[in-house]
């Protein structure tokens, strides 16, 4: 087990810096430059996890972000733990702790492995089929299904790391820094474009940077040395920014892209302190060049998922880049020339190759000849039919393929091995391109989807565009970029390329076996354990659309989105259903390309910045005086002010009583305030409110209801005429912004001829409301010069006043039914004015009250709260507020809707008062209201909208909406609760002082 499989030195690995890490609790060593995967492989560890459904042992399969199997939990049991991290991407650091997922008690002995033997009874759609009946049992099933679902564990503590967002604007964004991306970057930067080059890896140069074979040459230099010089050159460009460890997650319309830049995940823990961990880049690029390369395809055969089975290209990457041999007895299995590149690399490093199995029968190329020259046995026209070895592959069996590739013939040959490299050709990484809205076309000759039409100013180059070979890349890029960037010259004219790659390929989506398919486990999606058999079953059961087959079998629905197997799924469907690949389409690739942390998505918007709130200018006083706060829209409003450990109920009762017995004071600064000016201001108000405004004299206030065009109540508030052409409108706290928006909309689009100007002054003025029988005495102490008599200053009127040198607007208006004054003052004076009111009111026991008391007091008077007693289905008539709807006005917003066939129905829900039989019983807001409990089904008549215990009336009061309630006065109704029924009587919604004696006191 602890064998060292590190081979000859790689220059990408710093062998002078040894790094220790833990995997499943055991300590191992690797070198700086290693990924967790390469370090584990160097320690001869392949088994790293269990599969999702069958809990089959799984190993490292790739060397990149497409990895389906080797996903691990990092730093288990810490606040920094992270599930589903690809071992092939995480760079090791001192102190790294990783563990296997989806296994218990351990990856080597996993109880869930029994599912593998139960697999004949766990086919595709097992859950859908099994847990359908009896339907009432679903809740019981759900518990167990949820327990076994999901991969990895999410952290339970807050994330201690720092994340941030950053906007980037550039002329040209290049995604992918392989040979194509590097060439594009040089061309763009040399031509003066502000260029950004990003790559998900820690190094530049893609797979060419470790292509050190003498077979591939550019201008007579081995391709990797040529590319290295190019990279060194572009690093000097001032107008080119290069970001490594940066993965583009999403490619949206209008060239708007999101990328995740990893800043500290590769650093030792002690070097990360106070540094930003990850950054979400929001990139707006004028032009985008996609050079995302291609992914090697696996091959689909029986038991193709054992630890030790890797992509052939990954074996080459581990050998060339990390200096690691994946096995001592290596076999390669291929349908194209790529595996021979791997073979030659391994041979040069002295790594043993037992054999190469090639699907193709009659095939020859320079690479094959060179391989055979090195005495490596090549089985041509053969396929692997099975593998064995539970926790690590130890043997394969191969048979000869029939001419049509549908069957196997001849004798079985067994080959012992500890590592099998598979190569099924290449799939262009078109994920980001299709996310942007690009359409694909199918290229029959090598069975690949490549970009067809671009929805924005972008282009795909290199192997993600289907240009796989070195000569194709070097000859196509200069010409393409000349057109795309509209430039005359590129730096890559007349380059000599040596690229002896034979493009022949024998594509068989599902390789035949000597066994019946029902007895095979040929995995198409490794992470979700979807097999070829499952896909065929789905088709037999009638699924045809690729999107349906995907969901039924869960193919491509893992955290890797099926980057390896999606093409095979499509191929098997098209073969089985007899349709053409190009016509079948593909499933949708959705962002993110690789998983993002939540931290990256939220950035700095955490804690108090998650949802910022607004404070009134008097807020500090409320805090100091022990207020509890309530969220109203974005505002923090004082809810109630408990004294000496009072409960909320007790505090509200005390505040409510004080306000009616002597004096109360409320911070009403959050009310929306809109300043309305212009010669047509009165006409404008006439059109937006239901009542008439033309006769309101200067210095008077009026309450107004605003409707939507559909006749439903939208907002309410008091508007005051300050002068001939000047009004100040108040709106509800939550409705301020939308009311302003609605008024602007009508002014700009329907009535542009009106001379009206709207300005939001919500933040500029604070509002202090003093109410109660002693309010006049208190306010007149502060403003001694003013005549407060009813004649001079009646209810619903306004005065410009001065308190010292401070100008204020004083209104005598009331939301409580008490004598009440509202002082509007420039916000920055408001706290001192509030304190002055408190001082003046001391002798009257002036009591600060919050929103809860305000709600109680107004409910006693039957005043509505828009949004609490109304929803978007209440007309003023439903609210029994017919008095506010002008009959004379020819038109106002919503008028026509008030006599639509639906709005004139008698049995609409209407606002009524509700009194409980037992006056001590308080109803629950939202409770249902019914008339007959024995009727089946029980008819729901409405619900309770507001409910309080009134200390002033010494009984419970409530408002509710009841179907046909207007005509049910005095009628008995029932509120059914969990354990009881509450009897109520329909009453007038005005419970207190119907004659308005208090208002005019």
């Amino acid at each position, binding site marked *: 087990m602890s064998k060292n499989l590190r081979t000859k030195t790689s220059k990408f690995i710093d062998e002078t810096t040894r790094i220790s890490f833990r995997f499943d609790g055991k300590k191992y060593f690797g070198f700086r430059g290693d990924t967790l995967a390469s370090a584990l492989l160097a320690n001869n560890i392949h088994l790293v996890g269990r599969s999702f459904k069958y809990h089959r042992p799984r190993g490292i399969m790739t060397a990149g972000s497409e990895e389906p199997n080797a996903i691990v939990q990092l730093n288990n049991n810490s606040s920094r733990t992270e599930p589903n991290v690809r071992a092939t991407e995480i760079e090791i650091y001192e102190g790294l702790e990783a563990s296997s997922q989806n296994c218990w008690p351990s990856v080597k002995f996993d109880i869930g492995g029994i599912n593998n033997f139960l697999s004949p009874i766990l086919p595709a759609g097992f859950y859908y089929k099994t847990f359908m009946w009896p339907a009432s049992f679903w809740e019981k099933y759900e518990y167990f299904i949820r327990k076994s679902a999901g991969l990895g564990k999410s952290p339970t503590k807050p994330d201690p790391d720092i994340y941030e967002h950053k906007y980037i604007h550039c002329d040209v964004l290049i995604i992918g820094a392989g040979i194509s991306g590097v060439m594009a970057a040089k061309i763009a930067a040399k031509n003066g474009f502000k260029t950004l080059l990003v790559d998900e890896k820690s190094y530049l140069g893609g797979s060419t940077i470790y292509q050190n074979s003498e077979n591939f040459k550019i201008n007579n230099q081995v391709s990797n040395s040529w590319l290295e010089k190019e990279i060194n050159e572009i690093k000097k460009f001032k107008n080119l920014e290069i970001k490594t460890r940066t993965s583009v997650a999403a490619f949206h319309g209008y060239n708007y892209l999101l990328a995740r830049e990893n800043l500290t995940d590769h650093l030792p823990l002690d070097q990360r302190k106070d540094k930003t961990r990850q950054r979400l880049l929001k990139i*707006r690029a004028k032009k985008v060049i996609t050079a995302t390369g291609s992914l090697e395809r696996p091959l689909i055969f029986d038991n193709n998922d054992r630890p030790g089975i890797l992509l052939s290209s990954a074996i080459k990457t581990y050998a060339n880049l990390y200096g690691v041999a994946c096995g001592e007895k290596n076999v390669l299995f291929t349908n194209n020339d790529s595996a021979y590149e791997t073979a030659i690399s391994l041979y040069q490093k002295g790594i043993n190759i037992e054999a190469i199995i090639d699907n193709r029968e009659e095939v020859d190329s320079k690479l094959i000849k060179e391989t055979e020259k090195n005495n490596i046995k090549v089985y041509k026209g053969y396929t692997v039919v099975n593998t064995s070895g539970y926790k690590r592959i130890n043997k394969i069996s191969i048979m000869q393929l029939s001419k049509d590739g549908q069957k196997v013939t001849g004798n079985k040959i067994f080959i012992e091995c500890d590592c099998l490299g598979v190569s099924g050709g290449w799939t262009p990484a078109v994920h980001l391109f299709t996310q942007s809205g690009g359409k694909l076309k199918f290229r029959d000759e090598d069975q690949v989807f490549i970009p067809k039409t671009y929805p924005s100013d972008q282009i795909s180059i290199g192997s993600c565009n289907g240009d796989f070979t070195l000569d194709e890349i070097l000859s196509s890029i200069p010409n393409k970029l000349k057109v795309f960037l509209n430039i005359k010259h590129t730096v890559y004219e007349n380059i000599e390329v040596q690229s002896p790659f034979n493009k022949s390929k024998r594509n068989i989506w599902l390789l035949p076996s000597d066994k019946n398919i029902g007895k095979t486990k040929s995995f198409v999606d490794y992470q979700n354990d979807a097999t070829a058999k499952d896909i065929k079953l789905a088709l037999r059961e009638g699924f045809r659309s690729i999107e349906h087959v995907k969901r039924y079998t869960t193919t491509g629905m893992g955290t890797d989105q099926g980057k390896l197997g999606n093409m095979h799924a499509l191929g098997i469907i098209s073969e089985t259903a007899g349709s053409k690949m190009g016509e079948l389409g593909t499933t949708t690739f959705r962002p993110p390309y690789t998983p993002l942390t939540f931290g990256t998505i939220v950035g700095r918007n955490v804690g108090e910045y998650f949802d910022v709130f607004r404070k009134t200018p008097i807020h500090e006083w409320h805090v100091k005086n022990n207020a509890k706060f309530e969220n109203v829209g974005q505002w923090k409003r004082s809810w109630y002010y408990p004294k000496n450990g009072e409960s909320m109920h007790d505090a509200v009762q005390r505040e409510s009583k004080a306000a009616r017995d002597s004096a109360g004071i409320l911070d009403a600064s959050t009310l929306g305030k809109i300043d309305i000016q212009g010669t047509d201001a009165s006409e404008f108000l006439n059109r937006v409110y239901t009542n008439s405004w033309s006769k309101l004299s200067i210095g008077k206030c009026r309450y107004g209801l605003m409707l939507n065009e559909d006749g439903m109540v939208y907002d309410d508030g008091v508007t005051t005429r300050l002068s001939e052409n000047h009004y100040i409108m108040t709106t509800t706290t939550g409705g301020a912004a939308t009311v302003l928006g609605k008024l602007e909309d009508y002014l700009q689009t329907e009535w542009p001829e009106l001379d009206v100007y709207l300005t939001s002054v919500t933040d500029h003025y604070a509002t202090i409301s003093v109410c109660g029988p002693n309010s006049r005495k208190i306010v007149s102490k502060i403003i001694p010069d003013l005549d407060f008599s009813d004649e001079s200053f009646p209810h619903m009127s306004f005065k410009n006043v001065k308190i010292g040198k401070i100008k204020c607007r004083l209104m005598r208006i009331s939301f409580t039914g008490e004598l009440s004054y509202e002082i509007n003052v420039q916000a920055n004076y408001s706290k001192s004015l509030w304190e002055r009111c408190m001082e003046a009111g001391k002798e009257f026991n002036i009591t600060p009250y919050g929103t809860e008391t305000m709600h109680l007091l107004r409910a006693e008077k039957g005043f509505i709260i828009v949004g609490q007693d109304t929803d978007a289905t209440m007309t003023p008539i439903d609210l029994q507020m017919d008095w506010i709807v002008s009959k004379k006005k020819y038109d106002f917003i919503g008028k*026509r809707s008030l006599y639509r066939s639906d709005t004139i129905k008698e049995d609409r829900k209407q606002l009524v008062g509700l009194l409980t039989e037992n006056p001590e019983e308080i109803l629950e807001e939202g409770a249902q209201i019914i008339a007959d409990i024995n009727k089946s089904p029980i008819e729901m008549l409405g619900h309770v909208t507001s409910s309080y215990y009134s200390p002033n009336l010494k009984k419970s009061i409530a408002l509710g909406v009841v179907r046909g309630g207007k005509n049910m006065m005095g009628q008995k109704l029932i509120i059914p609760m969990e354990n009881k029924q509450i009897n109520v009587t329909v009453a007038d919604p005005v419970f207190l002082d119907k004659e308005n004696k208090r208002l005019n006191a």
Partner: protein
Amino acid sequence: MFLIICPYCGEREQSEFKAGGEAHIVRPKQPTELSDDEWAEYLFMRKNIKGIQFERWNHIHGCRKWFNMVRDTSNDEIKAVYKMGEKPPSI
């Protein structure tokens, strides 16, 4: 996310704007003269086209002006923007 050219401010991010539904639906001058059906036509009926759609947009986090926009809803291509009251382009 679109890049929208506000006719008053120029090119801005979509996040500065609010969509306001179908354009060129004029509020009837004499609503009281209309039958229930005619009023319902104005009130509720909106097109939801796959293709060229005329829409209202508001530069709500900018100049707060309303304007019209012609958008191909199948690929989000913005064909034109023009001020309120201006004649729609022939597209």
